[in-house]
Each structure stands twice: as structure tokens, then as C-alpha cells.
């Protein structure tokens, strides 16, 4: 073979490797769906977010802290905590041992859980595939990843069933990581094909529900640009919080992508009840926009950075959602202090 042919072949290798395509999966496929049976009169969901275990983490302290958050949620839900949703940034510059420690801990609680990835979850000495498989392999994990053409990895839905009927849908959406520029990176967002996937799933559930949308909530990591605009429109940034919470991030307050996403409009038109995210550790504001409740969870633990509330306590803990069969829900943000586990603070909003 002539030298230039060999060179051409070598140069083509990366392109050929890059041309491998993922399997085509129908957007409304049940491959994306996991089921969770509701056993009581309501379903209690704990949102943990931005745990951020890393090389500097004092593992015994943070293990005890997360366990106390879970125990508090268990107590607040009358001993029936049904599901835990972890909304990204569980790590930051860590290794597989640290990742295994965290997921082993969460698995040891014996409560079903889901994970949606944040922008920092790839910053570790693991591949995204390893992380996905690690999360999926947990014995209580409901994490699902379909080999598809939809942007992101953690796009899946959990159908909460009661009496053979889907009572609620819990959506996990991957807000991805970064959007490249020339010299800087912007945060990424939920892309149009992901919104199309969500719509297909919501429509499929509607069809199976006699033509009525199933009540749903969505969890993801990076707030999309549109929810910030909705927050501004709603007066959230001028201290007129509709439901509760505080904003301590500096301007621009919500660190979202500069790209607009169609998610918010789509969610409203598909009768979604609420969407919750993480990402900005110092915010926990929740507000109402066109009959949709949306906002931040509560940073879980002190790793990386966290804010002090106006009342002086650490804004670290968890967010608890109680989903009722009639399609309404309650939410409670509770704050536990690493330095003083007995100190408890919270605010709540009911019948949303």
C-alpha cells in the first residue's frame, strides 16, 4: 500500500470511529420508564442536590450528615420516605473510591433513588459510562439510561403507580454540562430533542390515562434560562417570593445557560405540576409561574460552598415533596447544620 493511502486511512480513522450511531429508540418507548408502587396515601420524595464529595471531603463527617438528612426526611414523612432524587453534582474532582462510597451509602438506606447528572459529575477519574453503570447498578437505583439519540444520559421517567394506575410521573432530565465557546464555557441546557422526548412520554402517559395528563414533576440540575426569566417576571428577584426560600447567589443570581430552552413552555402546556433543580448552592427560592411550581432544592452538605440564610443558619439540608393522589403536592425545605445536628430550620408550602 502506498504511503499516502496509509496516511489517508489513518486520518479517516477518527471520522469513521465518530460515525458510529446510537440505536434509534422511539421517544415514547417504555425503555425509559421505571415503576415505583405507592403504598401509602401519598408519596414522599426527598431531593438531595450538589453533594459535591471530592478529594477534600471529610468522609465520616459528610456520611453522618447525609444520613441525618435522610433520617430527618424519614421523620418528616411519618416514617415513609418512598423515593430519593439526587439532582446532580454529587462529585467534583474525585475518584472511583469516593463515588463508590457515596452510592454505597445511599444504597444502604434501602430506599429507591434516582439520579440526574450535573455539570460537575464528569469531573472525576472515571468515564461517563462508568458513572452511569455505577449509578444504575445500585440495588435500590431506579436510574435508567437508554442507548438512544436523545441528548444527555439521565433522561428517564418513573411512573408512580397506585391500584394499577399511574398516579404521578417523576421525570429526570439531563441538563448536560457545558456549552463550548472560544475562550470560555457556558453552562448547557435542556435541548429541544430532550423536550420532544418529554412530550412523547407525557403524551403516551396521557393516552394510557384516558386522555388526561398524568400529574408530573421534573428534576434536573442546571436551571434553564426560561425559568430565570419567569422568576424575574414573577418578582422573585425583587423579594416578592411566591412560596419561600432565599437567593444568595450574586448577580446574575441564576447561573443558567445563555441558550433558551423550550422546556418551560412545553411543561406548562403538558400540565406539569412542578420542576426542581439544584446547581446554585446559595439559592433555595421556589415560586409559582402559570400554575407551575418551580425552584431550587436545598444543597445537601457543606462541600464546595454554601450560603448562610438571613436568619443565620447554614442553608444545607434537603427538600421534601409529598405527592397526593389528587394531583396536588406539598413541599418543605429543611436545613440541618453540620456543626450542630440538633438545630433544625425549615419552611414549607402546602396544597400546591
Amino acid at each position, binding site marked *: 500500500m502506498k504511503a499516502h493511502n496509509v496516511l489517508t486511512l489513518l*486520518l479517516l*480513522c*477518527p*471520522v*469513521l*470511529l*465518530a*460515525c*458510529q*450511531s*446510537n440505536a434509534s429508540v422511539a421517544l415514547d418507548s417504555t425503555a425509559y420508564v421505571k415503576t415505583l408502587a405507592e403504598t401509602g396515601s401519598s408519596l414522599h420524595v426527598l431531593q438531595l442536590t450538589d453533594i459535591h464529595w*471530592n*478529594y*477534600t471531603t471529610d*468522609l*465520616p463527617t459528610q456520611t453522618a450528615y447525609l444520613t441525618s438528612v435522610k433520617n430527618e426526611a424519614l421523620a418528616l414523612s411519618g416514617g415513609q420516605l418512598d423515593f430519593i432524587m439526587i439532582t446532580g453534582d454529587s462529585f*467534583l*474532582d*474525585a*475518584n472511583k*473510591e*469516593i463515588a463508590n462510597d457515596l452510592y454505597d451509602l445511599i444504597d444502604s438506606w434501602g430506599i429507591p433513588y434516582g439520579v440526574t447528572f450535573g*455539570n*460537575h459529575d*464528569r*469531573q*472525576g*477519574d*472515571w*468515564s*461517563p*459510562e*462508568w458513572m452511569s453503570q455505577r449509578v444504575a447498578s445500585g440495588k435500590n437505583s431506579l436510574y435508567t439510561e437508554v442507548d438512544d439519540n436523545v441528548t444527555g444520559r439521565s433522561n428517564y421517567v418513573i411512573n408512580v403507580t397506585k391500584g394499577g394506575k399511574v398516579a404521578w410521573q417523576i421525570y429526570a432530565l439531563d441538563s448536560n*454540562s*457545558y*456549552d*463550548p*465557546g*472560544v*475562550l*470560555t*464555557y*457556558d453552562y448547557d441546557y435542556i435541548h429541544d430533542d430532550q423536550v420532544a422526548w418529554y412530550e412523547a412520554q407525557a403524551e403516551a402517559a396521557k393516552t394510557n390515562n384516558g386522555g388526561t395528563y398524568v400529574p408530573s414533576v421534573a428534576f434536573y440540575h442546571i436551571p434553564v434560562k426560561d425559568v430565570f426569566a419567569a422568576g424575574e417576571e414573577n418578582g422573585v428577584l425583587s423579594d416578592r417570593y411566591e412560596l419561600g426560600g432565599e437567593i444568595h447567589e450574586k448577580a446574575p443570581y441564576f447561573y443558567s445557560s445563555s441558550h433558551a430552552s423550550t422546556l418551560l413552555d412545553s411543561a406548562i402546556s403538558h400540565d406539569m405540576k412542578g420542576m426542581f433543580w439544584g446547581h446554585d448552592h446559595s439559592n433555595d427560592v421556589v415560586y409559582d409561574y402559570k400554575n407551575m411550581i418551580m425552584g431550587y432544592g436545598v444543597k445537601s452538605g457543606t462541600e*464546595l*460552598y454554601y450560603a448562610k440564610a438571613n436568619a443565620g443558619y447554614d442553608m444545607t439540608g434537603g427538600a421534601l415533596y409529598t405527592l397526593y393522589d389528587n394531583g396536588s403536592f406539598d413541599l418543605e425545605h429543611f436545613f440541618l447544620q453540620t456543626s450542630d445536628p440538633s438545630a433544625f430550620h425549615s419552611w414549607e408550602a402546602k396544597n400546591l
Partner: protein
Amino acid sequence: MSKKSLLKYEETLLFLFASVAFFYGWYILASDFQDFSHLDKITPSILAFWLPTYVLVVVHLILHPLSFEKLRQTYKINGIALGLIGAGGSLWVAILVLINVYHGLFQGFITPLFPFDILLIYLAVFFLGAYLAHHGYKIKKTPDLIFAKAEPRWAKKIIRSLVRPLYLFLALYNFGAFLAGFGFANYGSPTFGYTIPFYLLMFLEGGLFLLDELVIRSSGYAILKKKTKKIIAWSAFGFISVLVLLSFLFFLIEPDYLIENAIAYYPLDFMGGYNLAPFITVVPPLLASGAYVLSFSARGKRNQ
């Protein structure tokens, strides 16, 4: 095998080890980059991970001394410095274990043997330093010592003394990331193929340093024909240029390929939101190989 050849093999092995350690040193630092509030706890690890780089520099100075007196100074000064760092580091780790900042000598976490392994590094560096310092006082001038030519022009000397260490640090980081990356590369990604030229550039950045250190500075290279040297220089420059062009081309086709496949390699980029990785990976090998080619052109013109 001559003592110098043995040192070169040791330097190569040390380069491989130092590069991976250097990369992980930055990785640990990145985890505290937000506010540097854990430096008391992580500094011993970072220093231990960066110490092989210091030893590598010392080995280079021993391999390429400018004079006997400078060689003796290299042994003495760096030996004492390494000894002090090794002793201080060992003590620091021991104290952190005793006051329970590290939960035991085999706490694990950063590495499976942490902090025992970094204690071993400090102890090894202490003994190495003691040996070098001792050797510095005992060494005698012998005829087999070969000294490198000092750069006579001050401007060039200053530029070299700034550019070379900077290149070394970037090359160590990328080479270490490349080696460590075998454990966490995103092999299953549909865009993995696009990343291959970028990975090769990461490798070649360190590869060029080793080429210069082990081949170009060797006596065997000095006796090569000028034409052969030119072919080596142009081949390196040409190959690197093709890789750079491919990396850029693939970026135009798939702007997300580095985000998809390289986040784990460049934690500081993604902490600060700065897109530095392409520049520190593409520019140094391109400039280094370009300078190599230019050096022949300059010599050619001077000879005319």
C-alpha cells in the same frame, strides 16, 4: 551500561511517573479551587505528587551540567532542599494522622494506601536528598564528565530558562493526563474518534520533551547528517500540524467533542469555565516543533 545511560533510563521512567503524579496533584488542587479552604489538609498530598517533578529537574541538571562547580552545587543545594522537604513532609503527614485530620495511616480515599503512600514518597525524597547532598561533598572531577555548552547570549538564555520549564510543566500535565486517561477515557462515546488527534497531541507534547532530552542532546544525534536531522524536524512539525488541523476540523464538525470526552482531563478548565485545554495542548507542541524546524533554517542562513 554507562552511568549516564542508566541515568537517562531513570529519567525516562521518572518522567512517566512524575507526569501522572503531576496531573493528579493538579486534580487534587482543583477540588479546592473554589476557596482554598482545605489547603492544610491537601497540601501534603499535592506537594508529594509534585515532588517527582522536582526530582526530574534535578536529574536533568545532573545529566547536563554546565561545569563541575555547577554540578557540585546541583548535588549540594538540591540534595539539602530535597532532604528538608522530605523530612518536613514526613513530619507533616505524621502530625495530620496524629491529630485525626487523616483518619489513620491507611485511610484510603485519595489513593487506596493514603496517606501511607505519600509518607513513603516524603521518606524516599528525604533519603534521596541526603544521598545527593552527601555526594555533592564527595564528588571529584574526573575526565569522563561531559559538560553542556552554556548559551552565550543573555536574552536567549533568559527566554530559554522561562520557556523550557513552562513547556515542561505543560508537557508533564498533558502526558500524565494522557497516561492516566487510559483508565477513564470515554471509549464508548460516539465522538471518541474525533478526540484521537487531541489525545495524540497530549502524548506528543511530552514525547517531544523526551525526544529532546534523550535523543537530540545525545552524542549519537550530534553525529547524524544534517539532512537526517532536517527530516526528523520536518516530520515532527508536519505530523503535529496535521493533528492540530484535524483537531480544529473536528471542532467545527462537532463542537462538543472535548466536553463529551475531555472533562475528566482538565478539571481546572471546568471549575473556572475557561477553555484553556485546547490551547495548552495544541500550541506548545506546534511551537516546539516549529522552533526545531526554524533552528535549521537559521543555521542554514548563517552558513550561507
